């Protein structure tokens, strides 16, 4: 343990626990080892710490009182403000206080405040229509600034809430962001308009998708398990979704689109209110959700043209569930 550890308190609010599960995949020798050698000290985490009941309450009180310095407050899960602003849909067991209350109180003590996952960032699935619990993110409610801590909240070192969006987020997103904070390498300018670290969310999920050639020709899968691009028919939103998702291995080598299913933009506010996740909404045959920053007319023309240009190999493979047509072999010297 380093002499000046970076103290982390991790609490779960209206969470499914999935962000923690994802995080536990981090580290060559396991997350604990990683925390230790990176100089992090986990003040308390509900899933892994020994302290329970009273011991845990005392630990929290010491933090709340300022006795234990709090470098990063990590909140996993939406903050449930209902019913009627009481926060009672989510009490911290044994303390008689709502997580809304705890969160607001502890956030004031934190050098940095980090929202782990889309729930903590924007409300996430808990905030899905009809939002039965008045769920919010720490500083956003869907894409509106505000949330549980308010738009003006700044942590003690002057940063807004750092939103590690994703449901669940990649363990690397979480740990790299925390490490960057610990190194003092993440400034307000390194966050996008939704408080997400640019180094992750400056990418689109579409970047690095292995179905890219199908996309180029708009050669599309028509049924799940087919190889084609999932955008045209099967609901893929990766051309609009922020995140370097397809540039990382998930649980080894996975990713949503590599797994054969659509990106549902889980890093975006409001993803939970997508209807018909598996189908692409179209108007006049043109998908409604177009690639980020792409003029519609261009898309239409390009899509039409590239469809006509589709090589048979690509067309055939698009609707097959394994490779049926091979690229022509390179029998001539490559120049």
């Amino acid at each position, binding site marked *: 343990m380093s002499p000046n550890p970076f103290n982390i308190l991790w609490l*779960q609010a*209206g*969470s*499914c*626990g*999935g962000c923690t599960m*994802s995080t*536990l*995949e981090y*580290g*060559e*020798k*396991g997350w*604990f*080892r990683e925390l230790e050698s990176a100089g992090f000290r986990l003040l308390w985490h509900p*899933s*892994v*710490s*020994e302290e*329970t*009941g*009273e011991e*845990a309450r005392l630990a929290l009180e010491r933090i709340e009182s300022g006795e234990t310095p709090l470098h990063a407050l990590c909140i996993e899960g939406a903050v449930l403000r209902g*019913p009627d602003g009481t926060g009672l*849909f*989510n*009490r*911290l*067991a*044994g303390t008689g206080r709502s997580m809304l209350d705890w969160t607001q109180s502890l956030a004031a003590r934190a050098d940095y405040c980090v929202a782990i996952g889309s729930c903590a960032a924007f409300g996430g*699935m*808990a905030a*899905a*229509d*009809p939002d*039965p*619990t008045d769920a919010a993110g720490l500083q956003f409610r869907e894409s509106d600034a505000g949330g549980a801590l308010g738009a003006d909240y700044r942590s003690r070192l002057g940063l807004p809430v750092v939103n590690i969006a994703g449901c*669940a987020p990649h363990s690397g997103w979480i740990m790299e962001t925390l490490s960057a904070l610990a190194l003092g390498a993440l400034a307000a300018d390194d966050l996008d308009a939704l408080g997400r670290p640019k180094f992750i969310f400056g990418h689109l999920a579409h970047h690095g998708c292995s179905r890219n050639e199908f996309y180029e020709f708009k050669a599309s899968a028509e*049924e*799940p*398990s087919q190889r084609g691009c999932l955008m045209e028919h099967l609901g893929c939103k990766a051309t609009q979704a922020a995140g370097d998702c397809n540039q990382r*291995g*998930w*649980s*080894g*080598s*996975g990713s*949503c*689109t*590599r*797994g*054969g299913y659509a990106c*549902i933009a889980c890093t975006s506010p409001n993803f939970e209110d*997508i*209807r*018909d*996740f*598996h189908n692409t909404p179209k108007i006049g045959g043109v998908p409604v959700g177009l690639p980020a920053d792409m003029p519609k007319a261009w898309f239409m023309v390009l899509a039409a043209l590239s469809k006509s240009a589709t090589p048979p190999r690509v067309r055939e493979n698009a609707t097959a*569930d*394994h490779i049926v047509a091979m690229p022509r072999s390179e029998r001539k010297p490559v120049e």
Partner: protein
Amino acid sequence: MSRLLVGPFNRVEGDLELSLDIQDDAVVAARVATTLYRGFEQILPGRPAMDALAVAPRICGICSVSQSMAAAAALRALHQAEPAHNGVVAANLAHAAENLADHLTHFYIFFMPDFARAQYAPAGWHGAAERRFKAVEGSAANEVLPARRRLLEIMGLLAGKWPHSLAFQPGGTTCSVDLGQKIRLIAILRDFRRFLEEVFFAAPLESVLEMGTVEDLDSYAEGPGAGGDFAAFWRIARALDLENLGRAANVLMSYGAYRGAQGSLLGAGLFDPVSGSPEPFDPAAIREDVSHAFMREGPEDPMLARTEPDIAKAEAYSFAKAPRLGGRPAEVGAIARLAVHGHALTRVLLARSQGSNVAARIVARSMEIAIVTRAAEEWARSLSLDQPFCASAPLRDEGQGVGLIEAARGSLGHWMSVSRSKIRRYQIIAPTGWNFSPRDEQGVPGPLEQALEGAPLQGFGARAASVQHIVRSFDPCMVCTAH
């Protein structure tokens, strides 16, 4: 008599609060509450039926695949779809990966660290237990977390990501596996077996599965497998007599795990630990009682029920409803699956204490690890890559579907009604809903509430290790329970 409020009760999934009535340094009555309610059964209605596949897994991050499998099963029932064989196998493999990871996480991260507590400092085994199992600091975690990470690479291959994958479909899985991926699957399982055989059991799986008696367990734990973490557990269990801690004598229930073309790996059914005999199982007898839940009253049949919170309800002490089978509580989980399956050692342990107990629950979970790992190896090899992974079926826009599956912690059911291709009603009864059920209208406590009765506190009050062991022996997941 005094009453203790215990919380936050951690190293479980989700928010758990106990209320214990104490007399003579022992528990005389217990009430278990979940203090978080997110409202999934309110969110699902009104959405296109297939959207359950995106919403349901987010009920719980630790048994996300189980939720997906239950939703897919419900949709499959709705659409009367015939899944592709490869898809079934692939889904079972992914599900097995989740369940194995859950069992490991439970054993190493949630359960064993309690033996490293200072309360046990006087015990001869404590030093070793502390070095190996202490929360966050013990050496075991540095082996199990990488092993878990490696095991979950199955998810990357078959499910795209974990938790919360959309790979599980009524017709199979979205991810068709190629030859390289198949080889990788096999390699991952090889590594996992290796972990089990070198670290967890420190014995070949085959010999683990041959154990049928407590004597077998003893001689394994003192002999060849002595270096294994499971052996360490068993020696401590013997030292602390955990066979006589946390006893409950409810009927044990399983919906049947890992369904395939040849039926389930572990069949569906009931087993009565007191009589030591199986019983016939009728899912239609399942009901949910809301007498002590912060929920409005309504139909108890999950196919008809809705969920409307009522925070002001007087008798209520939990956001969880109380599931009942033919009016009785039931205990679910690995111990129930193995008992129903007829696993000899599990039945021996149940017979010895005429019910389930802390030791038996852990042993059953461990034995299931061995059984499922071996099965998964077969499944991986059996994928036939020239066959489809997902069958398409015409969607129905009206009807009902029930998805009954076995999650890591036990029996999970999704009940779904659809009209005009939108969900009208959706009810979820989770394993911990059964085990950590509050009292019902008859005042009958749930299995955990029963198991805590009589727990000795040895002067440690709310911090007593016995309470910790009993609660965690069920591997509770409160986010599943109340969702």
